[in-house]
């Protein structure tokens, strides 16, 4: 253990040990008068919840309460919305369709299940179970809509790549040693790009044969070029452009002064640049989106930030909503961080994760990242800040683990 690790461990222990049993609210059922007489700096809600928790746990009414909870949970979901794989209207699958990997709400060891969801968000099609006790890194959807690819990292260090035939619900898998955090189809779906920001990035064919190893490690994020010939990856201090076929390093674009850890998001053909999310040195967050011109005719420049985006926390400046830099359809921006926005009642404020931008740049799909009964997808107008569509249905007793929107673009 390094000296810093030891220092951190001791500091955390010192602070945690400062909380003693006598400091906690009494673990008994307080009378209403006691609740009302709590000192103002302590939460009334806290005491009430203590009362509820302990009382409910201790009393015979548990059975009645549990039944009521089950009823309430299930009443918000109509199982009729979940249909079998054979009912998928394949001729309609395209823009707006989403692959959802869902996990049981509580039992983390139960199998995860893959669904296809129509653009309304109301109709779910159960494709297949994809395994249990694995840690999923990413799920990708092929351009022809017929296949999905998922990464499962096992405890023993074996990275299993799942190749899922969505038409038949069949799984084919192969193993690539290592823990992979992302998978994306390249070469028109003939190959897969696997990456782990701390170890390696490789391109493999669909049998698991390694075609290309990209030199170096500590790469953050990867974005293939629109023509499928190049690959941008970030490092601590720069963006690096590789030949996707050979793995040769073609170009290094240094991060400007004051920025580091740049994650490439997408390529723009309008001004031949790579848009990357960079962290600001010495600032905990947020990062900024910078445009790196490939011809190095000018230094990388931060994108303008429309006013509404200033409230987006980690993705501040993540996109530019104007006419000079367009967002590629369905560009995934979720990897850049969470959006912290206020949404109208009765939805909760905050806790929303921005996942996709629509083809007109103005609608974002968001999802709550938490495993609660309230997982909700919504479409949100990034200019007005208003919610324009809301999806609340999902399979009973599950939480959305990963969502991938179909991308028609360049892969």
């Amino acid at each position, binding site marked *: 253990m390094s000296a810093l690790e030891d220092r*951190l461990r001791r500091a*955390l222990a010192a602070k945690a040990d400062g*909380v003693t049993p006598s400091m906690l609210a009494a673990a008994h059922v307080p009378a209403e008068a006691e609740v009302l007489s709590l000192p103002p700096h302590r939460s009334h809600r806290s005491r009430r919840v203590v009362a509820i928790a302990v009382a409910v746990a201790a009393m015979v009414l548990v059975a009645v309460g549990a039944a009521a909870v089950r009823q309430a949970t299930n009443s918000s979901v109509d199982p009729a919305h979940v249909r079998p794989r054979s009912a998928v209207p394949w001729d309609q699958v395209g823009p707006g369709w989403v692959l959802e990997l869902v996990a049981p709400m509580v039992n983390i060891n139960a199998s995860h299940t893959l669904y296809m969801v129509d653009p309304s968000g109301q109709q779910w099609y159960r494709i297949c179970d994809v395994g249990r006790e694995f840690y999923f890194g990413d799920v990708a959807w092929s351009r022809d809509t017929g296949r999905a690819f998922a990464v499962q990292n096992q405890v023993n260090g074996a990275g299993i790549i799942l190749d899922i035939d969505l038409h038949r619900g069949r799984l084919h898998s192969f193993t690539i040693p290592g823990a992979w955090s992302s998978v994306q189809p390249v070469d028109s779906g003939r190959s897969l790009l696997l990456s782990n920001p701390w170890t390696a990035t490789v391109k493999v064919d669909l049998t698991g044969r390694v075609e290309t190893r990209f030199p170096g490690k500590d790469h953050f994020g990867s974005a293939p070029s629109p023509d499928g010939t190049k690959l941008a990856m970030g490092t601590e201090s720069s963006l690096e452009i590789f030949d996707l076929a050979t793995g040769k390093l073609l170009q290094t674009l240094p991060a400007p002064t004051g920025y580091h850890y740049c994650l490439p998001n997408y390529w723009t053909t309008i001004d031949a640049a790579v848009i990357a999310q960079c962290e600001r040195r010495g600032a905990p967050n947020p990062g900024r989106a910078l445009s790196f011109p490939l011809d190095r005719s000018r230094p990388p420049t931060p994108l303008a930030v429309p006013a509404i985006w200033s409230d987006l926390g980690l993705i501040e400046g993540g996109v530019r909503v104007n006419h000079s830099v367009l967002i590629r359809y369905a560009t995934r921006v979720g990897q850049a961080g969470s959006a912290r926005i206020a949404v109208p009642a009765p939805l909760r404020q905050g806790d929303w994760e921005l996942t996709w931008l629509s083809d007109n740049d103005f609608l974002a799909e968001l999802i709550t990242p938490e495993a609660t009964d309230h997982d909700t997808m919504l479409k949100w107008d990034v200019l007005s800040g208003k919610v324009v569509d809301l999806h609340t249905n999902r399979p009973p007793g599950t939480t959305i683990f990963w969502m991938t929107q179909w991308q028609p673009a360049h892969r």
Partner: protein
Amino acid sequence: MTTATGPADVATLYSTHRLALVRLAVLLVDDLASAEDVVQDAFIAFHRRVDQLRDADAALGYLRVCVVNGARSALRRRQVARRYSHVGLQPDEAGADTEALLADEHREVLRALRKLPDRQREVLTLRYWSDLSEAQIAEALGISRGAVKSNASRGMRRLGEILGVSA
């Protein structure tokens, strides 16, 4: 095989793990009142699921997930409130009530820890205080093991930069 955890076990879990969970929550949200709220909410959520949990280990894992999620929600609510009110604590001021009696060297580390992004702070806290494995942290935070590793490495590196020492 699913083994239902009975109501008596809720009380046992509450008495056994409440203090540790409140301590975890304090490390994540900085103030005791919020930490207690987070933990009580976790037990309420746990009670709603109690008949679906396999065993005590699964129960504790679920409670830990609830505490981390609850702490994150509390922090974000706080940040949204600050943003809209245009006032509020600066990062260095947070945690003053729970750290007043600590040695300077500990306060310095905790101040630096608060400057990290939420995810990195959560990973480091779960790793260096809760002593969880990468897999357990991934489970608690709902992220991949690769993300745990990267957040831990980047968090330590950033912590070292802030403190002016090598990670």
